[in-house]
């Protein structure tokens, strides 16, 4: 049995980690630099990033390998270093987890290729699988417990990643980003994701949503997923509020206290693995852990209750309410 499945069988909920990119910028990563290069060039900083999540109480953290496919590394002329950069990302993670003295899951982060898949775009299914597999091999080689594909918009890309993980028999989790009127950029609704995932031959250990818009939106997504009663554990990794431009600086408006409320509500919505995404720092994670430990499990909130606590939604509807959008009447075809 893989380590995550085992931990899930022992616990009612797990705390995942927070932001990777925004945290690395705080450590001095130059904008435009590939974060993955730091696995080799600045390993102490990557270790510090992982330790930040571990010391804040995370049970799971994601490796610094989000842009580790050849498609992304190519933008930095590092497409020949896929296996190495991913392996080292996981190796540093393995060391940090093993040094912690408790069970910590090292999840090998796999982000989108950034390309649009056929037939709409140019990326073929075969090439996508090949790139994901190359990355996955490096991450598992470095000692990741599971693979974790995240921030995906296209169901085709999600399936390609799953197929790649199947090719090397690796356990995995997967989350998509619902950032366009409550759907993914490609138009997938939360409920449609449940159906899509159910048809994948090598089932993930857990699945759900990450990133997206704000804390309120992702809980609406989790409610949508859970209303289909999926058999697998559900993941919620939402952003710490919404980025705001104030006096020449950007900050995420989600305070640690707000993220604590979000974490408890996410669990009440039905999520079992709860974490943050952009803007979520260790100080948020500490409050989230505290709240999850101290608050009892409650009933799922209504949309109105979510709105009252975490703020409004980015769109009126998320495509799961059965209110069919007005379909354009075509003249003769279709």
């Amino acid at each position, binding site marked *: 049995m893989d380590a995550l499945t085992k931990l899930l069988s022992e616990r009612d909920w797990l705390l995942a980690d927070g932001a990777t*990119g*925004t945290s690395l*910028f705080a450590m001095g990563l*130059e*904008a*435009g630099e*590939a974060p993955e290069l730091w696995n080799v060039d600045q390993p102490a900083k990557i270790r510090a990033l992982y330790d930040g999540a571990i010391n804040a109480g995370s049970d799971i953290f994601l490796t610094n390998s989000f*842009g580790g496919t050849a498609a*992304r590394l190519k*933008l*930095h002329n590092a497409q020949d270093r896929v296996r190495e950069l991913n392996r080292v990302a996981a190796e540093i993670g393995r060391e940090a987890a093993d040094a912690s003295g408790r069970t910590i899951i090292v999840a090998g982060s796999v982000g*989108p290729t*950034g390309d*649009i898949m056929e*037939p*709409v*775009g140019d990326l073929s299914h075969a090439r996508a699988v090949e790139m994901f597999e190359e990355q996955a091999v490096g991450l598992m080689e470095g000692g990741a417990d599971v693979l974790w594909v995240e921030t995906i*918009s*296209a169901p085709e890309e999600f399936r390609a990643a799953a197929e790649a993980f199947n090719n090397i028999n690796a356990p995995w989790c997967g989350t998509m980003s619902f*950032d*366009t*009127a409550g*759907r993914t*950029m*490609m*138009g997938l609704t939360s409920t449609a994701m449940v159906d899509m995932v159910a048809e994948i031959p090598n089932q993930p250990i857990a699945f759900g949503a990450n990133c997206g818009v704000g804390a309120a939106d992702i809980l609406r997504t989790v409610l949508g997923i859970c209303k289909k009663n999926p058999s697998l554990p559900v993941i919620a990794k939402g952003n710490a509020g919404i*980025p705001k*431009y104030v006096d*020449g600086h*950007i*900050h*995420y408006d989600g305070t640690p206290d707000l993220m604590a409320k979000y974490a408890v509500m996410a669990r009440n919505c039905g999520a079992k693995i709860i974490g943050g995404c*952009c803007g979520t720092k260790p100080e948020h994670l500490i409050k989230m852990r505290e709240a999850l430990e101290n608050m009892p499990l409650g009933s799922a909130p209504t949309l109105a209750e979510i709105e009252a606590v975490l703020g409004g939604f980015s*769109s009126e*509807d998320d*495509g799961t309410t059965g209110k069919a*959008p*007005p*379909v*354009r009447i*075509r*003249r*003769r*075809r*279709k």
Partner: protein
Amino acid sequence: MSDEEDDLILSELSDDELVLQMHDDLYDGMAEEITEAVNILLARKWLPYDVLTKALVEGMRIVGIDFRDGILFVPEVLLAAGAMKGGMKILKPLLIESGAPQLGKMVIGTVKGDIHDIGKNLVAMMMEGAGFEVVDLGINNPVEDYLAALKAEKADILGMSALLTTTMTYMKIVIDTMVAEGIRDDYIVLVGGAPLNEEFGKAIGADAYCRDAAVAVETAKEYMDRKHNQL
């Protein structure tokens, strides 16, 4: 494929019906049909400019509205833009030959420090689909690259994109440099990207913030119209 569809012969439709059918076919991303219909209209002695504006641009406008309203999503819009591009391929040389007014030319790129390009690529594809000429500078562009391209390409519009909160502020550097060089008002500056909003666009001195690719196209058209009216 229904029998009805097999029965539809584009060349037997009247001009008005054919144009409406083209709006539908763009909506459904039917590339071959659009190419065929463009050729039919040209054979019927339509001006290339009228084919462009009345059939293609108008069809994409309808697609843009439903994209904005969350009825269509990126895959459908890209298929529509692809179909439009097929039609444009036929029209482009004819438009140049006839000296018809151009919709406009855009230089687009992700700002320095930002390597995220999917949103920028969508905007570029939609703009091309809507009939604009697009010069794509790719990712990670310093201010000099933007300014050099604007000048060399004689562009009308500058489009800047950023996904990161840490890089979006670079847009202000580009705009400030344009102001300092006295060329800010020569161009329409449009900005976009997930963490941006209207307030930010105003704060940094852009002409407009565009929430998505469809809004970018609409905004570009609106500003180009204003520019033409001023001339």
